[in-house]
């Protein structure tokens, strides 16, 4: 009887801890997901009380009507280009910087802070600084143009605006990515490096045979989050180019439809199309990219290192 009362009490206590989180999930995640899907099947404009259920018409219109939605496919292509540029660049730079910081250089904390500063700086301030730096007549670029009589127009040209925004975004997120990867690198068993050294491996060999396989799960996490972030990118375009010069991404298109054109139903349909695109890309990533070095390469290396240690101990005896 007493056991039962205690159990009930602990169950109530458990639920009381869970309820705020469950409420949060239901109110701010599950309900909006359901409601926005419902809106995507209506012609609601976000103002009036009445709307008509139109089925999948919004989805068909977005995908096929080039007159009403002339920029949809272009915005998809722009988003893909942005992702193709920013994700590899982000991964390479993160690996490079984290490896350098992991190599016990002087002033590691100072550099870590420097790289992390953009992550804690307001996006608007970052954008304002970059707009000034890239101004073709007044910023650093302006200085180069005047000094060397160049015609650099980075944000004003379709060829360079999107890569520039991708670079700025990578630069902004680098500090966070580096910290995550660095903490993963710090957890690598030092014996693995010693074993690699015994095998005659140098810095590059250690990186490719020990570091990289060991941080693969973290790297996979970073690639996944970067992919989602790249497909949902919006703020740099909104603040720095206003979507001009070939920088209208799908999120920007959704924003315009919802906020400026009062097409809530269509904007929701577009959001679900974006969701499907992201899900498809992530599915490919999960299929193709190695997700864990721990079970294959990592454990193999660890076993090898242990065997080496045993042999060394035997020789010593």
């Amino acid at each position, binding site marked *: 009887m007493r056991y039962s009362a205690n159990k009930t009490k602990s169950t109530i206590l458990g639920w009381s801890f869970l309820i705020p989180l469950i409420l949060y999930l239901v109110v701010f995640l599950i309900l909006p997901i359901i409601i926005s899907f419902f809106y995507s099947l209506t012609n609601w*404009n*976000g*103002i*009036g*009380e009445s709307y008509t259920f139109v089925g999948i018409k919004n989805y068909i219109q977005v995908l096929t009507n080039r*007159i*009403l939605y*002339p*920029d949809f496919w272009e915005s998809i292509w722009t988003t893909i280009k942005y992702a193709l540029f920013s994700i590899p660049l982000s991964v390479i730079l993160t690996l490079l910087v984290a490896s350098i910081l992991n190599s016990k250089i002087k002033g590691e904390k100072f550099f870590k802070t420097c790289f992390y500063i953009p992550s804690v700086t307001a996006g608007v301030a970052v954008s304002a600084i970059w*707009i*000034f730096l890239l*101004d*073709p*007549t*007044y910023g650093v670029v*302006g200085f180069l*143009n005047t000094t060397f009589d160049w*015609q650099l*127009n980075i*944000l*004003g*040209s*379709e*060829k360079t605006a999107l890569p520039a925004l991708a670079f700025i975004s990578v630069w902004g997120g680098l500090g966070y990515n580096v910290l995550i990867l660095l903490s993963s690198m710090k957890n690598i068993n030092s014996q693995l490096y010693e074993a690699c050294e015994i095998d005659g491996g140098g810095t590059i060999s250690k990186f490719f045979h020990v570091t990289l396989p060991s941080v693969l799960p973290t790297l996979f996490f970073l690639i996944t989050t970067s992919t989602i972030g790249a497909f949902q990118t919006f703020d740099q375009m909104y603040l720095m180019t*206003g979507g*001009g010069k070939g920088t209208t991404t799908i999120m920007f298109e959704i924003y*315009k439809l919802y*906020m*400026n*054109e*009062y097409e809530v139903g269509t904007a929701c349909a577009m959001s679900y199309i974006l969701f499907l695109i992201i899900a498809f890309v992530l599915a490919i990533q999960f299929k193709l990219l190695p997700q864990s070095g721990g079970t294959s390469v990592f454990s193999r290396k660890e076993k090898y290192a242990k065997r080496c240690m045993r042999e060394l101990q035997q020789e010593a005896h």
Partner: protein
Amino acid sequence: MKIKLGKIIVVLASLTLAACGDTSSVDTINFMVYSPATQESINALKQLIASYSTSSGVKVNLITVEKENYDETFRSAVRNGKFKPDLAYIDQPLIATYAQDNIIVPVLDYIAEWDDIELSDFNQEVLSTNEYQGALYGLPLNMTASVLFYNRDLVNDANVPTTWEQWKNFSVPSQKALFEGIGVGGFAGWYFQAFAKNAGGDIYNSETNQATFNTFQCREAAQFLKDIYRNDTDYLIHSSSNPFLNGDCLFKIGSSFDIGNILKQKPQFNLGVALMPSQSGEEHYSVMGGENLVITNVSKNKDKAADLLHFLLQEENNSLLSSFTGNFPAITEYAQTEDARLQIVLDQLEYVVARPVVPNWIKINDNYLGKAIEDILDYETNRDITDALSWAEQAANTLLG
């Protein structure tokens, strides 16, 4: 303990429900306005509303919202907000959309009861921005017109162009650009109407049921814009921030509120203001801006909202409210200034053209007309004028049809 807890929960739930409910009572109305730019203006606005409350006995909840987020906030508030607006500012091109959706109500019956203000007192072109399908859905609070700005350090007052020919052939100092341009998207579409009108055409027909972007006059206007904007040496200047304010451009288009902004940012800037040049040099057409006041359909106190509207349109009050945005009162008699530059804007207001009052005009303006003009003027895209305008016209007529 259990009873106490239960009571507390019931009280809390009741309070929450009450807070979520409609706050309007018989003697309370909600007034939603753009947030004035300065604290001084905010205080003046609060004082004005307080004086109305004192004299009328009606409590007014003043809801100030940043202009950038205004429409979204208004829509949310009308749908399910705690403070559903009874009286509100609305941007001119949105009247048709809100009227179609039954969000705002016709106001003619309320005005009929006023003995000191008549419809003929308003600038008629500005008033027409409230007319949708034969009904009047609001009253204009303030108005402005776009005019030609010039840098007096680079342009002599006597040489300011009045015709397109003079503007096109204006002698430009080296390292400077002739014209800052008409912006992108919405701005490009909006300003283009003035050029189309000055070429003798317009961007829609008289029944406002068809777009006429691809007429000879519109193509001529687009070609003129290309001539004054596109010059290879201007490429970098046009991509920089605020080229006019930085002294790199001779001319730009702006409105009365821009005058204050320019002088606030650079008090020493030698700003000149002139009427928009036209093709013939006779009638200098321009586009208008401004805010209208509407009574919402969700209002439970429409009579009191109308009474506040009446109060706000009194000369002193209207002038004060208009001054927050740098515009002029829409009642012609009240629109006066001693500033020479603002006087040009007042003169220009005699030649303003309104945007058509049709739903979806913002989409047509921003996505089709604006995009077409943007593509025509863009150095890289360099789209053919006829191709761009015919595409925009076809797309617009799909929506209008």
